[in-house]
């Protein structure tokens, strides 16, 4: 094989692998948007919480009853109660109180679960991969309940408000998670305890190599996409989900419990974000509280590129974005300086030329 072809193939593989990473997060964005027409800015930060949780559980430092965790639980309860108070005022419904108490209980239970998992891992003789598995489960549980709480306390009271209000709230939630994360986890980047592999390659020949984790991520991404498609297209919940995303009030008239469906979407999206956090941390073993920002933005670009609201579109968009970045870096002199610029240029261009994205059906410019 000539050198140039080898190089091109390797570049495409790298792009594909980066794209699969963006896709893991983009899918969550797109699901929430599809149902709620809300750009969930905080999604990137939920991914961060997933990775951080996995770090602390995996290294057995997730001790809910010791400081600073103890402080963070208090912080979360304080935040929750304040939000609950105002949310209650906004919704003017006593039923919300019960929901709020439920949310807090779920949050507390998730934290305690995380603590137990963390404790479990102090037992000797657990293989690194098993540790990662346990950490992954804890991260998924905690992020799932986080998504549930965020939706319940921050987004649900605003469902009838203009979209801008929800967007501002989403920005607020994102800031809260980022800077609250700095307060709780500390700003220091931490080395994720990625298991060491004797042979990290799945395939290696000449100038072309594919890492095992790359393959894992690509595989997980496609499996997820297919599973999600299956859920959306072939299950009762999926049908309800489509109905809600098609038309809110009519779906309610058909007897669909909208709140439940939306909560389900958020929980699912957040669980996926947690899984993405752990997978990505295996690949790039350094985690910090601000890691969600750039990754979240890139994933968002990918989701818009593919047509936001469309799950297959998000994956396509992510892979195109990853490959474009790799090509720009490889084949343009000084291209690496423009790597982020390219992503944002794609975002602006696609919003101008075809806001509904590559696979998006109808135009979003409803007037």
């Amino acid at each position, binding site marked *: 094989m000539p*050198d140039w072809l080898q*190089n091109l193939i*390797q*570049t495409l593989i*790298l*792009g594909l*692998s*980066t794209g699969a*990473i963006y896709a893991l997060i983009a899918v969550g964005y797109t699901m929430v948007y599809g149902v709620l027409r809300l750009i969930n800015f905080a999604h990137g930060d939920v991914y961060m919480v997933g990775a951080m949780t996995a770090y602390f559980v995996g290294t057995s430092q997730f001790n809910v009853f010791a400081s600073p965790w103890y402080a963070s639980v208090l912080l979360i309860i304080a935040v929750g109660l304040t939000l609950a108070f105002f949310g209650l005022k906004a919704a003017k419904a006593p039923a919300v109180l019960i929901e709020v108490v439920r949310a807090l209980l779920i949050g507390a239970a998730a934290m305690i679960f995380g603590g137990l998992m963390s404790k479990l891992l102090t037992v000797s003789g657990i293989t*690194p991969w098993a540790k990662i598995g346990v950490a992954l489960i804890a991260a998924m549980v905690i992020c799932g309940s986080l998504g549930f709480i965020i939706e319940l306390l921050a987004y649900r009271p605003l469902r009838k408000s203009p979209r801008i209000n929800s967007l501002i709230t989403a920005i607020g939630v994102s800031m809260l998670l980022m800077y609250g994360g*700095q307060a709780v986890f500390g*700003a*220091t*980047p*931490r*080395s*994720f*305890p*990625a*298991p*060491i592999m004797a042979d*990290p390659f799945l395939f*290696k020949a000449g*100038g072309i*190599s594919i*890492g095992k984790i790359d393959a894992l991520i690509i595989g997980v991404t496609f499996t997820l996409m297919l599973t999600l498609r299956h859920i959306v297209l072939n299950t009762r919940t999926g049908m309800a989900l489509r109905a809600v995303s098609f038309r809110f009030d009519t779906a309610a008239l058909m007897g669909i419990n909208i709140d439940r469906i939306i909560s389900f979407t958020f929980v699912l999206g957040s669980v996926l974000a947690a899984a993405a956090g752990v997978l*990505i941390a295996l690949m*790039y*073993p*350094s985690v*910090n509280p*601000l*890691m969600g*920002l*750039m*990754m979240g933005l890139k994933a968002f670009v990918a989701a818009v590129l593919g047509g936001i609201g469309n799950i297959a579109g998000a994956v396509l968009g992510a892979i195109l974005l990853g490959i474009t*970045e*790799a090509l720009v*870096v*490889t084949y343009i002199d*000084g291209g*690496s*300086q423009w*790597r*982020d610029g390219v992503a944002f240029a794609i975002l602006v261009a696609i919003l101008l030329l075809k806001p509904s994205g590559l696979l998006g059906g109808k135009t979003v410019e409803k007037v």
Partner: protein
Amino acid sequence: MKGGGGGDIVIGHYASLTGSTAVFGISADEGARLAVDELNGSGGVLGRKIKLVTEDTQSKPEEAVTAVQKLINQDKVVAMLGEIASNRSLAAAPICQKAKIPMLSPASTNPKVTKVGNYIFRACFIDTFQGPVMADFAMKSVNGPHARKLAVFYDVKNDYSLGLREVFIARVKELGGEIVADESFGEGDVDFRAQLNKIKATNPDAIWVPGYYQEVALIAGQARQLGITVPLLGGDGWDADSLAKSSAGGIDGCFFSNHYASDDKSPAVQKFISTYKAKYNGKLPDAMAILGYDSMLLMADAIKRAGNTDGKAVRDALAKTKDFAGAAGNITIDKDRNAQKPIVVLRVVAKKVGDNFEQKFQYVETVTP
């Protein structure tokens, strides 16, 4: 509280306690506080205790200016320590210069910083020394005497990295070497494989990665994954204890220049390390900690030599510093108010221990200016 009369001598320190370079700011502050404890323990300076007031800059230039204004006008400091990053020092230095408060930066290596004015000093070597030292090292010592083809991989969003890139390239060209690749990444990136793949195609003898440790560790790991076996070279921004873990051992065999070597057997270094560990729960000091410590001691020494806390007198005393025995080597302040001090080249050794990696910095050589 006020600085005048017979009360405490108030010294200001503006440091990035939060934000993107929080790790460095916190280390420097811990180092400086250790020095204050030691000074006060031995009776203070000029018979007075030293009080260190630290303000956070949030890793942002405009906050550095605000912090310095606060320290000068509210806390009435007589001397200023800070900042680690050159961009913050550049933003705040004019304020100190105009207020005639001597400012001593522990670790801003950009040459522009001390050019702001005659009240601005630094306690570390400058990029125009550090870069060429590593360029010489790359040309002579790496891969035998024939390392002629070098690649550069720098952080485009980081002024420190940009400065080191320039001086390195200039020096390599001067020595007759060839820069085969000049690629960049951005602070906070996690994926570097596309750039590394491009660098790999040019077959360099070594790669110059002047960046901060967080990205460097990931770069090293991904470079090894892509089959790049040549050593990576870097500057003092590499100094951290997470290199081996975050790079999954990929950092093994790479070299960087630093302010001191922790395996240095000299009593000053060993004493510093043991007291630092005792004070901060066994945390191993990094270069920023020892620089913060040295800066504080140097400032106290200058005040002692000046005999009073008048800004001009302290400035003159600082400017006359000669062979001051700091923990990280002797410091002589030259006519451009830069510290003339030796640089050490370290080799990173990463060993797999069980399911984890342990790292050690191995002393390679010392270069004196």
